[in-house]
């Protein structure tokens, strides 16, 4: 049935990837949301990467932990909204929590990446589109505070649709709250490494995603501030295909390197080692 229910023009749109049905693709065939190539699910391999264009399919935070680290101790696992009083918000949160096994849209903790100890944060686009709620901001802030106190580098994988509408202005304030913690971490002369993953937009792009000392990105990830539809309706112009793709950002000078998913752990560890100050 799966074979017949996948309409061609549906799968060619990236937006569809965000839908719950595609969350963990269980179909026999998949289409790459970026290049549209059809392939067997198994062809994606353990890194879940398009065999044709290298696009990394969206991962859940816990899946990424598996690929990236040998050892992970979660921090602040239980932090979550106390009174989600906006209409329908509590139900949305509950659904997201059961789908992702996370209490919020970011997973934080201490990790060993190829032997290097880092404070690691991974945003999960399957949790309310990785939106920046006040508890998301709280967890990331605490991660930076911990890293500053214990002199650790921070590695943060960003994935977010932007602000969390249900929390209104408090969501906006998270951008400043996390930035304050980034500032303190910077002043302690510690490394902050960002990995931009698909998609990173809105308030996250306009704050901690663009504040790293070094910024890596996964191939073809969508990264931008304003949504493409908003821009098109503002300037009355169709946007080119690679608009807001990290390849364009690299060209324009906003990304240090685009790195295949399978290479990330090795490169992160190498960069961290290059920032270790102690002499041999």
């Amino acid at each position, binding site marked *: 049935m799966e074979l017949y229910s996948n309409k061609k023009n549906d799968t060619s749109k990236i937006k569809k990837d965000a839908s719950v049905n595609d969350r963990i693709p269980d179909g026999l065939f998949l289409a790459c949301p970026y290049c549209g190539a059809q392939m067997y699910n198994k062809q994606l391999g353990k890194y879940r990467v398009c065999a044709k264009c290298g696009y990394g399919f969206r991962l859940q935070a816990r899946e990424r932990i598996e690929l990236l680290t040998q050892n992970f101790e979660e921090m602040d696992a239980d932090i979550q909204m106390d009174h989600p009083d*906006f209409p329908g918000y509590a139900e949305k949160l509950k659904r997201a929590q059961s789908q992702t096994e996370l209490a919020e849209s970011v997973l934080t903790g201490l990790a060993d990446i190829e032997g290097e100890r880092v404070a690691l944060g991974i945003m999960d686009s399957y949790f309310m589109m990785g939106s920046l709620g006040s508890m998301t*901001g709280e967890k990331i802030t605490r991660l930076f505070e911990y890293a500053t106190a214990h002199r650790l580098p921070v590695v943060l994988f960003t994935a977010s649709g932007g602000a969390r509408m249900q929390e209104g202005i408090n969501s906006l304030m998270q951008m*400043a709250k996390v930035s304050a913690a*980034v*500032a303190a971490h910077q002043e302690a002369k510690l490394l902050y490494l960002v990995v931009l993953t698909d998609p990173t937009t809105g308030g996250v792009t*306009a704050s901690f*995603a663009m504040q790293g000392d070094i910024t890596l990105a996964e191939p073809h990830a969508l990264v931008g501030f*304003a949504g493409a539809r908003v821009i098109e309706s*503002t300037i009355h112009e169709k946007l080119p295909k690679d608009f807001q793709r990290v390849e364009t950002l690299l060209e324009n000078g906003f990304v240090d390197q685009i790195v295949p998913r399978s290479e990330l752990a090795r490169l992160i560890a190498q960069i961290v080692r290059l920032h270790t100050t102690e002499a041999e």
Partner: protein
Amino acid sequence: MPDILSGLKLFKRELTPAQVVKKSREDRFMAREIIDGIFTEFVELHGDRLGGDDMSIIGGIARLGTMPVTVIVVDKGIDIHDKLSKRNGSPEPWGYRKAQRLMQQANRFNRPIIMFVNTPGAFPGKEAEAQGQGEAIAKSILDSMKLTVPMISIIYGEGGSGGALALATADQVWMFQNATYSILSPEGFASILWKDSKRSEEAAEIMGLTAKDLLEKNIIEYIIPESRNHPRVFNLIRKRLTDEISSLNQLTPDELIVKRRNRFRAF
């Protein structure tokens, strides 16, 4: 009955959030008028020194009473051509970078920074994205967390989203009585949450975007009462700015920064 009620509210000058939204978008106070009304000896400074100058952000140095200060003001423009060229007060990345440059300059000369915000948001354009609108806002916020001079930001019309926050990461944030400050416009909010931008009035009601709502939540410190008598409003602002800056000046640079960061840590 509803008519009588709304009549009463008008009488008490208490507007509904939807009315405030409308009012915040009217040309009640103009950027140049604010600068001339509050400060003296204004010297305008142009350019971000990276290749751009955005006219929707007016920046410069001036005196507040006798004290030299740096002034950064978002300008929506006066007539239709002016408004178009300033995209109705939506800054481009090079506008934020001009502001960053002037903030750094203020820091170097130990001048307090006073910002006036009136923007629907950062401009959602092709060139803006290519030039790193996100990065520009991110850096404005991060820089603001490190400056050791007093910073006060006043939202005098619309305070739209990250584009406003970039100039409202300060020791104190004030709002004009009929200004708004929100995560996005009520139209955008309604269209995202309910897929219907026509429900903007309803959105305005629940978004909590009025000065009164935000004062209750400690998002802002002070509401500036408005009056048709603009000089009176400006005199009040000048006096209050002078008082607050002199008390912020009592703090050491470290204390000031810790206090500013803690202000946002609370959210």
